[in-house]
């Protein structure tokens, strides 16, 4: 696909996302401080949101492997966003146009996802809507914080009451 065509696939997305961070990281709750599926170690200006609280909880649990996370040590945030150039990789036509499959987007090899993210960043895309690898029913939004359009916004993050938790990690 020609680079110029990629930008035309971006679409607006206005919703609310969720993420959990360890209590020591609540000063900057949007910042992913390590390598993730769509950011390399040196690409820290990326955040990951889930479209449901359940998916957010499962994403954190997955990273700890078989032991899961200590839910009481994590703080849950609700984050509203208004974005204008989101690439929806859960849309079959968009995924086909970009040559990616759900298996690629949730598989164990991250290189293809990170390469795709780099390509979309270069095209001015603000983020990616993609399938969750932790929750078969879930979707995540990956936002490139350094790519935000002036008309786009994210946050402020609102702490949620843990007594309303929806999932045991």
């Amino acid at each position, binding site marked *: 696909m020609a680079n110029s065509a990629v930008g035309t696939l971006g679409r607006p997305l206005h919703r609310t996302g969720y993420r959990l961070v*360890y209590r020591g*990281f609540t000063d900057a709750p949007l910042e*992913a401080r390590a390598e993730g599926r769509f950011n390399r170690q040196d690409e820290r200006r990326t955040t990951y949101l889930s479209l449901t609280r359940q998916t957010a909880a499962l*994403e954190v649990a997955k*990273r700890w492997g078989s032991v*899961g996370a200590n839910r009481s040590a*994590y703080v849950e945030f609700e984050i509203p966003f208004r974005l204008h150039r989101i690439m929806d990789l859960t849309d079959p036509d968009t995924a086909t146009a970009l040559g990616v499959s759900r298996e690629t987007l949730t598989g164990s090899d991250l290189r293809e996802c990170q390469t795709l993210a780099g390509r979309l960043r270069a095209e001015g895309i603000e983020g990616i809507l993609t399938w969750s690898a932790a929750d078969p029913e879930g979707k*995540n939004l990956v936002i490139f914080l350094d790519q935000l359009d002036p008309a786009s916004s994210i946050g402020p993050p609102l702490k949620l009451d843990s007594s309303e938790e929806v999932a045991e990690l």
Partner: protein
Amino acid sequence: MRAKAKAVRRAPVRPAPSTLRVLRPGLAPIARLRARLGVTQEQYARLLGVAWATVSRWERGRARPDPKATAKLNRLRELADLIGDAIRPEDLPKFLMTPHPELRGHPPADLLENEFGFEAVKGLVLAAQSGAYR
């Protein structure tokens, strides 16, 4: 040789493993770290890649860890600090000893042998704490 034997005879008597929890404040650093991890001497030995008897000798002050084991103990301590209570304390031994898919199937403890492996484990912990999805 004779001097070494003398040193061994003068070594302080360390508490028996079963009394670790009661005597924790006064424990030597090696035993204190084990108490903090909540593992038996046998599990501790497995974490560190040494024989159970070696751990026993360290805790009784009959021997000292060599530089390689010291480095691993320091990394283990740093890792426990980094993890904090992000996982339940009782799950820490299991986390350390269970093969992890994001570490190419290695248990985190096995990667504490060198700085390269240690960085990989720290990266995983930071990602899990700061919400970098995988």
